[in-house]
């Protein structure tokens, strides 16, 4: 199937946008101006002003001499880019690949899209019709290259569709400016009597290159489809993504569920064939009023099980607000990983971390309560207790170092060491008494000290001398003195409880 491109050209992009917010301007001539070398130059005109002979590039003073009632406003820099981007995003409902064509157009890669609207005619009508309803003056065209579509939009009728057989006749009679050339080149071509595209087609390429440079030839080739023109979509296309347009806007939760199930089925089937699984999934609903509703889920381990993924979405479906209805659903998988097919076992032997039941449970928990609630810990090669364990990045992360058991560590570690009052013989003896939470503990047995230095390449501060002590009731504590006795600014802390 040949490629098809649609181009939409906005005659009065900026002024139309002004009129949307100030309807009273619709019937008055007005222009947008920007300062240039101390003069005010007109940068945009509205249809009313245009018909009275005012064009872009005139000096404001001249224009006001022609039309005394002319209104003028300051131009907003960067406005076309902003407007076109938002319109292009809106156009994603017509095709996933939409790009902006500064200063006043949009190019849509409509390959394989038009039949969903019963043909190219109604496809273009529905795009342009909606834009006209909003208040834009647009021309739309469809052709097999972006260049031809652009030419037809600017120089053809309000809606022009060229098919491959009649393309040349329609396209060849267009002026040379339809090739998207620089103004100087167009003037030079016109001076030489080359007014239509067919005039330059018959000329040798070497002559054209010598006189007008490579740009002209490139544009010619692009328009004729001999050289591919790469268009940059406003939203990068997700490689794993599915779309479901609806005949009628969906407003009920049941409808949304059916749409989600259908999308999941298609996506999971494709993923299973490619041996991939989903780590992250975004479900979007494009509302009739232009709003986009999105819910997303994450999984702890790659999955292509449609039922499981649907269960994860289920609790979030209620957060979608359909309002007047959703006309298009999309399902994007931005994060996909390879699945290593696990061999089915006849017997349920020891179920480790790969236990599918556990992974499903964790997915449900993290989608209900958030990712930061579930932790698995791995050892790190640090002596400093707070840094000796780290949170594993995934459920399958392997140990890089072994757990150490050469030094006693308390099973119950306080989040922050708490200061305590201690009686201890100086300079370096373990405590005899200590007071923690207003209770006096007499120390009976002691292990220590174990000195742990701060890692100077990470942070600065005092070292800790740890003592494991047991009081007269047999309760075992982990205490430490921060700093040397001789420094005077030492302090005692409790850091944990042994079992």
């Amino acid at each position, binding site marked *: 199937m040949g490629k098809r491109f649609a181009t939409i050209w906005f005659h009065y992009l900026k002024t139309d946008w002004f009129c949307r917010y100030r309807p009273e301007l619709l019937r008055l001539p007005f222009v947008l101006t920007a300062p240039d070398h101390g003069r005010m130059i007109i940068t945009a005109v509205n249809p009313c002003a245009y018909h009275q002979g005012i064009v872009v590039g005139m000096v404001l003073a001249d224009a006001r001499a022609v039309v005394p009632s002319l209104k003028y406003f300051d131009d907003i820099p960067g406005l076309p880019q902003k407007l076109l981007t938002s319109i292009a995003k809106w156009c994603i409902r017509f095709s996933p690949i939409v790009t902006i064509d500064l200063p006043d157009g949009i190019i849509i890669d409509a390959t394989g899209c038009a039949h969903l609207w019963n043909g190219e005619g109604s496809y273009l009508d529905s795009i342009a019709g909606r834009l006209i309803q909003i208040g834009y003056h647009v021309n739309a065209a469809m052709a097999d290259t972006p260049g031809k579509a652009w030419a037809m939009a600017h120089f053809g009728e309000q809606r022009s569709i060229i098919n491959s057989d009649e393309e040349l006749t329609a396209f060849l009679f267009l002026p040379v400016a339809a090739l998207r050339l620089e103004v100087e080149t167009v003037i030079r071509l016109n001076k030489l009597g080359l007014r239509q595209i067919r005039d330059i087609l018959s000329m040798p390429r070497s002559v054209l290159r010598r006189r007008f440079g490579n740009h002209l030839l490139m544009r010619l080739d692009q328009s004729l489809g001999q050289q591919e023109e790469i268009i940059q979509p406003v939203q990068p296309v997700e490689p794993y993504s599915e779309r479901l347009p609806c005949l009628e806007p969906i407003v009920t939760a049941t409808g949304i569920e059916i749409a989600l199930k259908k999308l999941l089925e298609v996506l999971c089937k494709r993923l299973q064939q490619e041996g991939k699984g989903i780590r992250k999934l975004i479900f979007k609903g494009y509302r009739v009023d232009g709003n986009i509703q999105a819910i997303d889920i994450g999984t702890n381990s790659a999955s292509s099980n449609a039922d499981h993924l649907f269960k994860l979405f289920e609790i979030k479906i209620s957060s979608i607000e359909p309002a007047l209805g959703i006309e298009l659903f999309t399902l994007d998988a931005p994060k996909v990983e390879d699945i290593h097919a696990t061999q089915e076992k006849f017997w349920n032997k020891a179920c480790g971390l790969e236990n599918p*039941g556990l992974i499903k449970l964790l997915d449900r928990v993290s989608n209900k309560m958030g990712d930061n609630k*579930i*932790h*698995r810990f791995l050892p790190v090669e640090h002596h400093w207790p707070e840094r*000796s364990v780290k949170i594993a990045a995934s459920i399958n992360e392997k140990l890089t170092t072994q757990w150490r058991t050469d030094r006693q*560590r308390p099973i119950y570690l306080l989040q922050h060491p708490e200061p305590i009052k201690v009686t201890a013989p100086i300079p370096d003896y373990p405590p005899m008494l200590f007071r923690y939470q207003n209770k006096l503990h007499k120390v009976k047995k002691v292990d220590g000290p174990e000195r742990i230095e701060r890692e100077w390449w990470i942070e600065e501060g005092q070292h800790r001398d740890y003592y494991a002590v047991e009081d007269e009731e047999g309760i075992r504590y982990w205490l430490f003195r921060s700093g040397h006795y001789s420094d005077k600014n030492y302090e005692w802390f409790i850091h944990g409880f042994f*079992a």
Partner: protein
Amino acid sequence: MEFWVSSMLPQKADILFQLQKDILQLQGFRCKASDDLIRPVLGPIDSSFPNGVFPLASIHEFLTHSAEDMAATSGFISCLLSSLMNNGGVSVWIGTSQAIFPAALKFFNVEPDKIIFINTKKPKELLWLLEETLKCEGLAAVVGETSEVTSTESRRLQLAVEQSRVTGFLIRNNSRNINANACTARWKISSTPSIMAEDVPGIGFPAWNIELLKMRNGKPGKWQMQWAYNKLHSIPDPIILSPAEQRKTG
């Protein structure tokens, strides 16, 4: 009672024993042969359990009143986990904040990276979590730190474990009312001075007062135990070391 049983015909005693076993099975104390591989062996405490074996696939409740109690209880539970997880199983530890220091679990012969910690502050979420994890087949055990659990809630948890055959441990911290509930056992663990020879400096092995306050179809009791060389030993029994372990300690 014992006199009465022994005075009966041996045949009759056999029948009675079999009937008792059947009743236990009907009450949910099913014994699978594969369970014996992971069943904790607690020495003298075992005689208090129905059938003389530690009840798996049931809810055990531990009462604690302070952080010190929590530490002792966590230690004892870790001892139980060490055998429950010795075939590569995974446990889930649910709490309100991350108080357990994972690196210390290794001292109780538990692989700390095989434990998944889930922390939540909301009591409702915690109970939902407990029930969902206890329903998850293939877990070795689930530990939950919760202060209150009503009779209905405990019954739901008990029903969940009977289906999934997961063992559940509830650490009840500072609970105001110790109500009747459906838990199979109620324990109280507290630290006790470790045993050291005279004049030897340092701290000995972790030692606990273990109180079994309630045991369905069993007898409550009180023991002193210590954890040494990956095994529970009762106090004051001397620790008998294998030659290899003797060499290790020098």
